[in-house]
């Protein structure tokens, strides 16, 4: 078995250890005998995404937003197309914001995003920084349970983002914030998902802190339509790390 991965803009979206997500994804595939091919898609590159099973976008500095949107404009239709066909996508932080409908700057300028998620961001001087804990939505909990053998219903990460992101009418959140700020610090939503595409502000990296979430992406990348199950791994260390932080945050 083989999964084809596209790492989108690693030359710019490379903050906060996010590329650790690909390492975690890679290892968890490898430990189950699944091969991974990773292509780097750099600024200025063109092409479509139909041959990929998994597209990954990390977080980056807000100051690169304009540069990224200029490049993203050209490939956005291909990303949307891939997501519609069930390609798995994970976008963190700025990557998530760029894939929303638009970003409104503090000066009131509206910058059009790729439109994968029904979400939009309004920049202001607020910044959300700190450990974050969420309870996955009922739907997502169901999916997480089916994909993995772990009985974890929470997601943990470290958020570090500016502005406020809101979900549109069709937008579905990843979960409800128990501790931390989430999308906008107001409605307790965090992240968004649509088909097999996931956006979130969770760094950490999110897949390292949430092995059950990593396995969900792995399952979907292997088989976007049908349900399959993965060979279980010894995740005692990962689960211990998750639960240690969870305990600290709930306290």
């Amino acid at each position, binding site marked *: 078995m083989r999964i084809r991965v596209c790492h989108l803009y690693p030359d710019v979206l490379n903050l906060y250890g996010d590329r*650790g997500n690909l*390492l975690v994804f890679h290892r968890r595939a490898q430990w189950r005998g699944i091969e991974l091919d990773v292509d780097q898609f750099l600024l200025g590159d063109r092409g479509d995404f139909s041959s990929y099973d998994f597209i990954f976008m990390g977080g980056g500095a807000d100051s690169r937003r304009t540069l990224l949107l200029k490049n993203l404009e050209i490939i956005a239709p291909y990303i949307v197309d891939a997501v519609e066909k069930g390609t798995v996508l994970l976008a963190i932080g700025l990557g998530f914001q760029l894939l929303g409908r638009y970003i409104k700057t503090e000066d009131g300028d509206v910058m059009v995003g790729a439109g994968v998620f029904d979400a939009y961001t309004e920049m202001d001087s607020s910044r959300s*920084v700190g450990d974050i804990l969420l309870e996955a939505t009922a739907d997502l909990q169901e999916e997480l349970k089916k994909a993995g053998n772990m009985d974890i219903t929470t997601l943990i990460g470290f958020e570090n983002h500016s502005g406020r992101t809101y979900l549109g009418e069709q937008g579905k959140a990843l979960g409800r914030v128990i501790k931390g700020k989430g999308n906008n610090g107001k409605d307790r939503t965090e992240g968004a998902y649509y088909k097999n595409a996931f956006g979130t502000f969770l760094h950490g990296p999110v897949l390292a802190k949430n092995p059950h979430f990593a396995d969900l992406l792995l399952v979907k990348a292997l088989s976007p339509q049908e349900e399959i199950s993965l060979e279980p791994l010894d995740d005692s260390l990962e689960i211990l790390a998750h639960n240690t932080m969870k305990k600290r945050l709930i306290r």
Partner: protein
Amino acid sequence: MNKNSINKGFRFWLAFYAGRFSVFLCRLFRLSGTSLPGAVALRICPQLLFYLASAYEKIIAVTGTNGKTTTTNLITYYLRQAGVPVIGNGEGANMITGVVTALIKDCNFFGAAQSRTVVLEVDEGSVGKILPAVKPDLIVVTNYFRDQLDRYSELDHIITLLRNTIDGLPETELLLNADDPLVVAVGRGRPAVRYYGVEVEKDCKEPEKNEIREGGFCPECGELLVYNYYHYGQLGDYRCTKCSFKRPEADFVALDVDDSDLLHFTLHVQNKNSSIDLHSQLRGFYNVYNILAASAAALIISIPEQSIEASLPDYSTATGRLEQFIYHGRLCTLALIKNPIGVNEVMKTILPQEGKKAFLIAINDLAGDGKDVSWLWDADFEKLNHPMISKVVCSGRRAAEMAVRLKYAGLATSKIVLEPGCRESLDVLGLQQVDQYYILASYTSLFNYAKLLRKMGKAVAKDADQGLPSLS
């Protein structure tokens, strides 16, 4: 810049004596007292730093992400060796409260400064508060790497902060790292800027796959920079393909760098066309920059070349920069780690050393460490996946996450030991039958290990006390 004639008011004296008294109380109760007296005094007189700084003839400030402490300490050391009365602050005391404390301590009972020159390590986030008050004659900038981003948000903010601050200091001279495009951006458009840089012909290396580059963008037009060669991080010989921005010609150049063991290189001073031969007890390529910056700063303030050349070989490190102990009969090296570039450079320095090794990695997430530990995934811990490394003990508040990092770095779980406690983790390390121990500790755990190692083992004496502020 002697501003001795400034009239100090009642509030100054009240604040000064409150600060002095706090220093006394801290000593009495054996508290570290590197920041508290300053905090007390500043509450009474917010302009205190301006008054205190006005007593000095020369003020040098060092800021940047990595290398501040070593550079500050080395400049201080050069001055002291050359017979100049000098004081400095130490790391952990590099915010305004620490700077004020250091200056209060330098005054005698009547408020008269004992030293003539001050060398200040200034936290990147505190430049806006400290620099306008002290009006430095010279500002040295080391480098800008991603570090504790939860505290400072993004690098761009830090750089803009420094730029805006120095706009109000037209007379201050700048000494900048030519190899770092982010640092060079600070000096754009200023007249009195001098640069230092490392030029290594044979070292035209590609960046290692796992290394991080954040500064590789043109500060003028935002384009990706292209490099003739890299040293590490975004440091190297770069230029922009869209505009005229490129690495400036350095005034102080390190040539023929030998970093295979103790550092050795030639410092070439362009405007004098002279060269000095520098031998140091420090290791690690990153220390070339610290030595280069400190030597250049000393030359700028007229310390003779011979004095620098003669005193450097006797300089050894302050706490935490590869400090060595004997523990359970074995050499035990303690190193501070605080960001990926730092970890990678420390590992490049210690891994080539011979013998079987056991590691202890202590990661805390308190304010001093940086609350976000996701940077562990940007550091090249894959290097620890090595046959000569038999065990890695993980400790600290984020011990479990460190252990997970190592598991994904490819270490067998049988090599990973989870022991969050400080004392307990050191006990586990002491059981390992290896040739050398290495402890990599984040900032707040560093002191605890240094303290315990002094108690349970003993420090390897270099030239004991150089009168430099210790970290503990």
